[in-house]
């Protein structure tokens, strides 16, 4: 039942005339990671450990995968060519509310930005906001991946709505992979409430439990013990944002990107 639309989608993707050559057939994750089009992105691999992270989340190239809040598309440029030939890549954004009349919505803008390089075809990407999830997607998704977005959901009052939407996407045996900036367990609540980007791992696990998710496993793949995770300027003090510009830049670059938790959840009752 679930496989039928999946294959149909893959067949459609293969039949798309605008399909670019570099992903007309299945490529291994290693091949995709080494693609020239990722040259600029690859400098972050040492902090983001994409191969290890996707392996930990149990993502397979045949799966139907939703990336929540793809942002600037760093993971999109890896997931899309890897998944499009045999599986399916979809992007979901937190509901942005009613847009400007006559202006393109988030989904159109995201697809336009992702395909602008010519490396990807619009037919390869499904994108939607959380209040416009296509009916045929509900309950069919193998993995939802949430990279560094939980604090933003908290700050935007949107965690309840969006975690609920994420759950509605998942097949019964689907799972959610989460990477999130991590505050020390003994961080003061006033620091770890999301406003500084960092959250306490126990709080993230509780938040998912409230929304019907059970922790399957936690990994230290994306840990960075050199990050004290107490910056006055929040996580944006560190690369890649480096909010203070050249001030103490070498020190921040030596630390690298933030300390992060890597959590895998399954649906529970």
């Amino acid at each position: 039942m679930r496989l039928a639309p999946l294959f149909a989608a893959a067949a459609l993707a293969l039949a798309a005339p605008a399909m670019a050559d570099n992903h007309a057939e299945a490529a291994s994750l290693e091949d995709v990671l080494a693609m020239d089009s990722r040259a600029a992105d690859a400098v972050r691999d040492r902090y983001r450990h994409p191969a290890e992270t996707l392996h930990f989340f149990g993502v397979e190239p045949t799966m139907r995968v939703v990336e929540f809040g793809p942002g600037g598309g760093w993971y999109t440029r890896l997931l899309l060519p890897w998944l499009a030939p045999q599986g399916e890549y979809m992007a979901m954004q937190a509901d942005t509310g009613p847009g400007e009349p006559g202006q393109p919505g988030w989904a159109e803008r995201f697809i336009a930005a992702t395909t602008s390089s010519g490396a990807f075809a619009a037919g390869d990407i499904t994108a939607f906001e959380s209040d416009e999830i296509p009916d045929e997607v509900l309950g069919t998704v193998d993995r939802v991946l949430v990279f560094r977005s939980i604090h933003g959901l908290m700050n935007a009052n949107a965690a309840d709505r969006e975690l609920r939407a994420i759950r509605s996407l998942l097949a019964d045996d689907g799972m959610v992979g989460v990477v999130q900036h991590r505050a020390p367990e003994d961080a003061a609540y006033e620091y770890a409430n999301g406003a500084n980007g960092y959250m306490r791992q126990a709080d993230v696990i509780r938040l998912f439990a409230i929304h019907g998710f059970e922790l399957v496993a936690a990994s230290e793949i994306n840990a960075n013990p050199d990050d004290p995770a107490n910056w006055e300027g929040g996580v944006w003090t560190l690369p890649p944002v480096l909010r203070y510009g050249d001030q103490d830049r070498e020190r921040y670059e030596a630390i690298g990107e933030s300390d992060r938790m890597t959590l895998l959840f399954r649906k529970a009752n």
Partner: protein
Amino acid sequence: MRVLSCLAAATMAVSTPAPVMAQQQEQEEPSTGEQILRGVLDVLTGRDRTTEAPQETQSDAQMERAQTMNEVLMHPRRAEDRARDAWRHPAETLEFFDIEPGMTVVDYMPATGWYSRVLIPYLGREGNYIGLNPELHPDLTGYWDMYRNAASRIPADARNWVGMDGARVWGLNTDDELESFAGTADRVLIFREIHNMRRFGWLHDSMMAIRTLLKDDGLLGVVQHRAREDAPIGYTFGDNGYQRQEDVIRLMAVYGFELVAASEINANPNDPANWERGVWSLPPSYAGASEGSAERARRAEIGESDRMTLLFRKVS
């Protein structure tokens, strides 16, 4: 591990507020905090106090408070409200939350003022009552308009509810400037609104505002429609009113609040808490049960919903 932290929390609750503590030690009477701690200890040790000798006479302060509460509850303005006392147990609930005259108390979403008509007179001339409403999304209109402009609306409503009696009344929306009220509240009370905070996207801003308003040693009291522990998650997101007690405790932990004690004051074991149309199936709404029907009579017999009653303290 959890037992220890729970005890630690109860011990801390005992140590507040200091002047009352000193006064009651003098009289060798347990403070409410101590009673709560004893209650926690009883639960942990499986001891049943009701089988023991009745407690000694109450302290003068306690008797005075009980007297004040009794006068407030019996006031003619509560003639209609009183029908719900059997389900809402206002005296027991406010005692469990350790509310005293003279305190500054935040009431989250006073709505039509059922609890305001108890709290404002009970807090008295020395007290402050702050009605706190969320920030309303522009799409929420009609019924929801009454929650806007709390700064002017709630004090005006209070005049209609209780005249000039009792505490000084303030109104706030969570997007108002809270700075001048920061750290002033002894208690924050959330009566049956957790499900709305979740489903309408008020949770984060409201909990952050509540933390801002509450004193460091202040306490948060929550009454909430309670789903069965094994209720399916799809039933407990908020649309049916009911929440699982464990989820509410987790939710408060995410916002830096630790459980001090839980009470069954507002429990109703006759509520199956699985109504297709949610908690509004029961009185006072009776959704889906027409007037005069046998079904309505059956639900009247059940009464208002099963409810958890939880007391939390602010932790770092």
